[in-house]
Structure formats: structure tokens, C-alpha cells
């Protein structure tokens, strides 16, 4: 039996936004970590937008961006924020409110 949340997650459309500032190592790491995770867990039902604040600084205030890199889950609501290079997958999953992969496999 699948948990209820999981089933809803499976159906929902995900909109993610990654804020970076130039091509820094941290940004690049964050991007590759995120890309990998999305392909694994949200294949086909997500949109990933990367915003470079060096080019569009005026966008920083709207999403209350402070730290770089910051991942914002715009959809599904509520909005959630994860900061850092996303190297700690467990924290990223908690942050995105996704079930860890291991739980999924056992269920």
C-alpha cells in the first residue's frame, strides 16, 4: 500500500527554481545534484528553472533569496526553500517533502 502523500506527489506537477550567482562551483554542484534527484524521483512531471542573480538581481527579493544557492519549490504549495549545494540528499528530500527513496523501495 502506498502512503497517501506519495500518491498525491506522484500526480502533482512540480515547479522548481534554483537561484545561483554565476557559474560558481557551489552553483554547479547544486545544479547537478538537483538534476540527478529530479530525474530519479520526478521524471516527466517537473520544471526546473535556473535563475542567475548576477544577471537579474531584481528577482532576488521576490523569493526572499539570501543564501546562494537556493532551491525554491514553487509547486506544489506550500513554497519550500532549501539552501546549499544540495550535497546532503537526505536534507534535500526532507526539504522538498519527498519520501526517501529507501522507504519507497521497501513499501
Amino acid at each position, binding site marked *: 500500500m502506498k502512503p497517501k502523500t506519495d500518491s498525491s506527489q506522484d500526480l502533482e506537477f512540480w515547479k522548481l527554481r534554483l537561484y545561483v550567482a554565476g557559474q560558481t562551483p557551489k552553483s554547479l554542484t547544486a545544479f547537478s545534484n538537483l538534476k540527478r534527484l529530479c530525474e530519479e524521483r520526478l521524471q516527466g512531471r517537473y520544471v526546473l528553472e535556473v535563475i542567475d542573480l548576477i544577471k537579474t538581481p531584481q528577482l532576488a*527579493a521576490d523569493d526572499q533569496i539570501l543564501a546562494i544557492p537556493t532551491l525554491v519549490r514553487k509547486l506544489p504549495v506550500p513554497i519550500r526553500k532549501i539552501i546549499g549545494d544540495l550535497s546532503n540528499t537526505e536534507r534535500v528530500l526532507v526539504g522538498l517533502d519527498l519520501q526517501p527513496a529507501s522507504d519507497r523501495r521497501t513499501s
Partner: protein
Amino acid sequence: MKKQIRKQTPVLPKAPTGIQGLDQLTGGGLPQGRPTLLCGSAGCGKTLIAMEFLVRGATQFGEPGVFMAFEERIEELAQNFASLGHDLNALVAQKKLALDFVRVERSEIEEAGDYDLEGLFIRLGHLIDKIGAKRVVLDTIETLFSGLTNAAILRAELRRLFRWLKDKGVTAIITGERGEATLTRYGLEEYVADCVIMLDHRVSENMSTRRLRIVKYRGSSHGTGEYPFLIDEAGISLLPITSLGLKHPASTERVSSGLPDLDAMMGGRGYYRGSSVLVSGTAGSGKTSLSAHFAAAAAARGERCLWFAFEESANQIARNMRSIGLDLERPVRQGRLRFHAERPTMSGLEMHLVTIHKQVQEVQPQVVIIDPITNFNALGSDLEIKAMLTRLIDYFKQQQITALFTSLNSGGRAEEAPEVGVSSLMDTWLLLRDVESGAERNRVLHLLKSRGMAHSNQVREFLLTDRGVELRNVYLGPSGILLTGSARGALEAQEQAQALVREQEASGRTRALERKRAALEAQIAALRAEYGVEEAELQRGIAQGDARTAMLAGDRIEMGRQRQANVTATRKTRKPN
């Protein structure tokens, strides 16, 4: 060579805050292009001072500013400052001010890996570039510590931020909450080394006073010590109470006390302009009435008078003074007399000082009345009150304001010791006293001292009549006791009666003399008449004698003619006649 270098070294450039007292303290403002730490406990006015710095920078010094708030939303900020008379939205619309609210909510943020605060830098940099800001406020950046867990990253980023602000060349204020043992809870003072200002909000004797202290100011001299400041509808007023030194000018101009009799006691011309006058006395001895005369006289001269009433409302004073024939309402209507009435317990001692300064600056009076200073007693120790009054008197002297202070003496104390030991600060000291004798209490006035002028040493009786205050001569009774009131009246009457008797006696004597002279003159006249009679008789006798002689001579000539022979002989004998 070395000297030359020193000469060429430019003085530390400063960004004026526009907050008058603060600029005086810092010798011109905050260090330009450097960050300043403004720390203090909650509610002590950090945000307000910081915003005032930006608003005044934008409106008075042509320096746009960025306010980055970490605690208050922009709408809240705008509302809060609207109540203080600043229209932030208008300034934003004019691109003189940029506001940004940075929300840091730990529950909304998940940390997953390494990060930095470049986003904050970008936001701030964007706003600075957008309006060409010269000033920046970060209020309160320490919020980051509660929102983000990685303190190591935060500290490194803060260090970078302050360096970055310096590189940008903006004058920044960073606010910080006061910590237990440190100036700020997270040790921000470590990063901001140029200027640290501490605010304090202390409650003593149930009065709260906000104070400001410059903890450090690298490369500049500054006022040390704590300075009270006031937040009201006009913003912040800070009062630097550094010792002004005794450099105030001394005027030789005199101003009337409002009582010709009192003026007469001071060489006929009254107090010196810019001097301080103490009127001390027991309850109901007429201190306020004396003050009212002074105020009315100032208004009549066309001067402005500011009256701080700490016991009565303006209306009450006006009503009471009407009963002694003084109209204080007219000068109020004419704008020449301004009352500032409040209970002294309304605020702390320092706050009163600030309020008085503010009022004086606003009204620009020539005469100030403080009635009474003894009500400050509840607010501090004697030493504190004396220190406050010293500052106040120095300030008045600096402004060439003639100040009249009243002081209430309680019955039990020695009369020549006013409640507040300030008599040495005063130039003129009038002591009002009650004298009890003959089942009456009457008021007397002494001029205990008056610097720089000849003054009367007399004790005078002080009467409150429906035509105002009158001074009367005081009588000494037979045993040297001061006689006042009805005793004086009785003595006066007695003296009048005696005078009358003396007058009557004198006129009686005059009349007796008159009579005597008349009698004498009559006698003289009688004698003269007698003499006249005698003289007439004598004259008659003489005339008869002559006639006889002539007759005899005629007979002899006749006889000679008859005896011719004897003619020559007769002539011979007559020749020697």
C-alpha cells in the same frame, strides 16, 4: 618632513546624521564610508535612529539610502514612521530611499550543503546601485543567526559583508541586539571596528530614560558619557550635556522683575539679563505670584516667556493670577507667554532636560520660569538634580535667557537651605518667608544675594493685593521684633496718631507765639505812641525856646541901635558866634 605629512593627512570624513545632538557628540557625524554598529536592548530606539539617519541623509544631505529590514515588513516600517512624520513611501517614490524586507524563517529553510550569502549581497548591491545610495542600514542583521544554523558560514559572510560595504564606500549603520556580556548578542562588534554606539533604556525610580553612549569612534574624538535622548512626534532629540565650560557672555543689561519696589531693592533696575534667579520659600509664600509678575513684565516688554509649570495647569495659574490683578491670558493670546505644564513624574530627569531644551529651541524665549524645581526631587538624588540644573543654567546662560526658578522649602528645614542645593549656582536669590506673630502669618521677602549689583539688605513685607504684589517697609517693634501684618498696621496707626498729636502740639505752640508777638507788638505800639507824644511836646518846647532867643536877640539889636556908640563893640562881641 613628518610634520608635513601629518598636515596633509585629511581629517576623517564624516556623514552628518542630521540629528543635532548626535552630530555635536561625534564631531560631525558617523565615519563616512564605514560601518557603524548601533547596539542596544529591545525598544531603545535603534531602528528609529537608523531610519532618521537615512531620511535626513536623503532629504537634507542629498545622500540616498537603503534600509534593509530583517524584523519589520516594509508596510509596518512605513506605518511606524508615518506616525513620526516621515513619509517613507514618498521618499521611495522619489528614489531617495529604498526599503527591503529580508525574511529569515528557520522553519521555511532547509540547509542541505555548503552555501554563502551572495543572495543578500546581490539584493543589497542592486538597491544601492538602483538609487545611487550613499547610506545603508541593516536592521538587525543578527536575525540571520536565528534563521540559519551554520554559524561558521555566517561569521565568515558577515566579515565579508562589512568589508564589501566599505569597498562600496557607503556609510552604514548595523544594528544589533545587546548581549549578556558582550555589546551584541552575536559579537558583531568584532566585525565593526570603526564606530560603536550603544543605546540604553533604563528604568530608575519608575522612570524610564533612553540614553546614548559612543563606545568607540576610531580616528575621531567624541563625547564620552551617556546622553539622554527623546523620541516624540518630531523624531529624535539628543542632548549633549558635555560641560559647556563657563564661557557664557555676561550682559550688563537689566530686566525688570515686574515689581518696581523689588527693582528698587536692586539698584532700581532689576535682574541682569541672562542671569539666574532663585525664588525660594515655604508653601503659599508667593513664589508663583512673583514669577507671574516677572512673566507679565517680560511680555509687556514684548519679549517671549516660557513657563514650565510642574504643579499647576496653565489655566489654574492664569485664574489664580487674575485674583491678584495680573492678566496672563493676554500675553498667552499674543504668543508672548507659553505654558508647558506637566507633572514632573511624567518622565525622568534627563527627559525633562531634553524637553526643556526642545521647548526653548522652539519658542526662543528671553525669559524662562521653572516652577518649582523642587518637584524634581522625586526623580533623582540631590547630586543628580544639581547636575541637571547646572546643565540647565549653563544652557540658559549660553542663550542669554533670564531664568527664574522657584524652590519650595518645607517647613522643617532651615530656611536658608533650599531643598535643592543650587543656591550657589544662582546669581540672585530671593527668599520668601512666613513670619508668624500676633496670631498671623505674614510674608516677608529678603534679597539674600544678587551678584554684581548693589542691593538692599532690608527685609520687606510682601503683600498680595488685588493690584498685584506690593512690598512694604517692615517695622521693628520696641523689642526689636519684626512687625508685619496687622501689628505693622497698628504700629503705623499709632505712629500716625502720635504724629497728629505732635502736629497739634506744634501748631498750638505756634499760635501761642503768635499771640505773644501780637502782645509784644501792641506793647511796642503803645510805647511808640507814648514816645510820639513826648517827642511832640519836646519839639514844642524847643520851638518856644528858639522864639525866645530870637526875641532876645531882636531886643539887643534894638537896644544897640538906641545906643549908637556901642555898635562896633556889639559886633565885636558877636563875631565869635
